[in-house]
């Protein structure tokens, strides 16, 4: 039972809580990480012999803390001056028992740990990299591979991000309710970005990076366990589950994008869908709408449709309308236009997205949708221009290939009578 795989899983699961608590003690990320590493090494030595502790996180916190305190004492002897600032809460540092953290304590520890990774000065990709390193415990090599950069470049990026975080002075006291809500929302958007990075890669060859999606889901579930009554965290988790449920159907054997309506729905993961639907339903009962819940509800309506023609586009249109009022984002309007094209036809959808042309001129999906709508309306020449523009903005080979398929279809259509092209 106590094999290495089990220990590895236990260490990964305990990591956010343990590093979070160690960060609270030592107020320094490097010290906290080092202490955790040491505790893990000792776990690998002792757990196979003695059996795992009842509460792995508490064990790791205690061992890590003792190690770091010894280190600090040793260094302070060498450096003569004791560095009091490095240690906080020294009064209880001698407590011989593994602390039994109550839920609210470690909840704030984990949230703080996630939150320090989301410093507003850090670009989104660096926030994600830092969270993957510190909270998830991925190696620099793994993160570098996920972001398709060299290990050295990623190392440098993470070191720089850590320095910035260290200077940010995130308070270590338990946060008040408004602060906690703000932290929660910042962390939620970081997790969302992490998922998107995996779901629709921003560059490189791979269009979908499943491990990033899975890690985002793990973090979302972690957050929801800590804040089980937060509708938006339920919504976020549901959204990620429902999107990820389609992963196997989104690309064909050649790595080409398969659109929602063309996907083999038997490949959708019904367990993830069931969990996502259960969370959406639970969130809706709270009657406090928010953007994640609405997006999850849209994903739920797609997931619920047995066949594409069963999709409740009218409800999806209405949900996007509400989402528009929350976010005011032109991308949301663009998505709504897809629903509108199903309910009211391509003409209405085209009219809806035309005003967005200025703001979304550099956005792949804008030109892709514009092209598809024009194609449906039989305006082939204009469609071709839109598709050409989209191809020039494609982020991955799969996106480019998908547009090329449209162009080929237009080409074939132009060689046949119009009536067949519409079929």
């Amino acid at each position, binding site marked *: 039972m106590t094999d290495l795989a089990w220990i590895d899983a236990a260490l990964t699961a305990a990591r956010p809580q343990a590093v979070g608590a160690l960060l609270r003690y030592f107020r320094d990320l490097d010290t906290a990480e080092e202490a955790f590493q040491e505790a893990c090494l000792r776990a690998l030595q002792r757990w196979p012999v003695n*059996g795992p502790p009842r509460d792995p996180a508490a064990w790791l916190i205690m061992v890590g803390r003792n190690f770091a305190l010894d280190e600090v004492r040793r260094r302070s002897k060498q450096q003569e001056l004791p560095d009091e600032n490095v240690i906080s809460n020294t009064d209880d540092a001698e407590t011989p028992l593994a602390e039994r953290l109550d839920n609210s304590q470690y909840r704030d520890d984990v949230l703080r740990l996630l939150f320090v990774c989301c410093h507003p000065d850090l670009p989104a990709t660096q926030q994600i990299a830092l969270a993957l390193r510190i909270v998830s415990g991925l190696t620099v090599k793994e993160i570098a591979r996920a972001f398709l950069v060299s290990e050295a470049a990623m190392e440098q990026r993470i070191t720089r991000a850590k320095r910035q975080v260290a200077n940010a002075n995130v308070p270590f006291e338990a946060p008040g309710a408004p602060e906690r809500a703000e932290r929660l929302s910042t962390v939620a958007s970081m997790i969302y970005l992490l998922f998107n990075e995996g779901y629709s890669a921003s560059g490189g060859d791979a269009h979908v990076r499943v491990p990033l999606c899975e890690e985002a889901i793990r973090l979302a579930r972690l957050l929801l366990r800590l804040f089980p009554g937060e509708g938006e965290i339920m919504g976020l988790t549901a959204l990620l589950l429902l999107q990820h449920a389609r992963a196997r159907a989104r690309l064909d054997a050649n790595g080409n994008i398969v659109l929602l309506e063309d996907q083999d729905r038997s490949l959708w993961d019904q367990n993830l869908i069931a969990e996502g639907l259960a969370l*959406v339903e639970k969130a809706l*009962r709270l009657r406090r709408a928010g953007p994640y819940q609405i997006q999850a509800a849209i994903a739920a*309506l797609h997931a619920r449709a047995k066949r594409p023609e069963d999709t409740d586009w009218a*409800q999806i249109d*209405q*949900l996007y309308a509400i989402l528009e009022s929350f976010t005011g984002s032109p991308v949301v309007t663009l998505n709504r236009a897809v629903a509108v094209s199903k309910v009211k036809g391509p003409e209405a959808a085209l009219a809806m997205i035309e005003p967005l042309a200025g703001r979304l001129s550099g956005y792949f999906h804008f030109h892709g949708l514009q092209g598809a709508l024009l194609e449906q309306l039989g305006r082939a020449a204009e469609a071709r221009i839109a598709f050409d523009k989209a191809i020039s903005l494609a982020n991955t080979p799969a996106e480019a290939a998908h547009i090329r398929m449209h162009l080929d279809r237009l080409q074939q259509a132009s060689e046949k009578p119009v009536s067949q092209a519409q079929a």
Partner: protein
Amino acid sequence: MSGVGAQIGHTPATFDISLKGPRMLYAILCYNSEAVVNAWSKEKDDAVMAHHQGVMRNLAAKGKLGPVARLMPTTTATTLRPGREALVLDGPFAETKEQLLGFYIVDCESLEEAIEIGKQFMNETGAMEIRPVMFFDKGSAAQ
């Protein structure tokens, strides 16, 4: 069918979508303080069980009732924990103020309906946890 109950253009506080459809199995897990329940008189215990039986009959008539179990006291429990070899420990999984005493599996259209059924089972004390069932096999164990 419930739709989106909000005015477009304003940020609504609530919204509704209809997700009714394939039915879902829910587990209704009954928790209570074992010490309290064990201290019930025979009459009290009978009255509580009679109440539960009534709700069960009602659900069974509608074809909504799945397996039901009432567990023996946690003093009869044995816990297995992973170790070099699995550890066999006398006693329950965790020392808690309230214990899992039993469960119902019910077939519902929505969480709302499962909550309604849970309320029907509710006694004056104890709590119920309602959890959607991910995997279900009605099994073949003979009684």
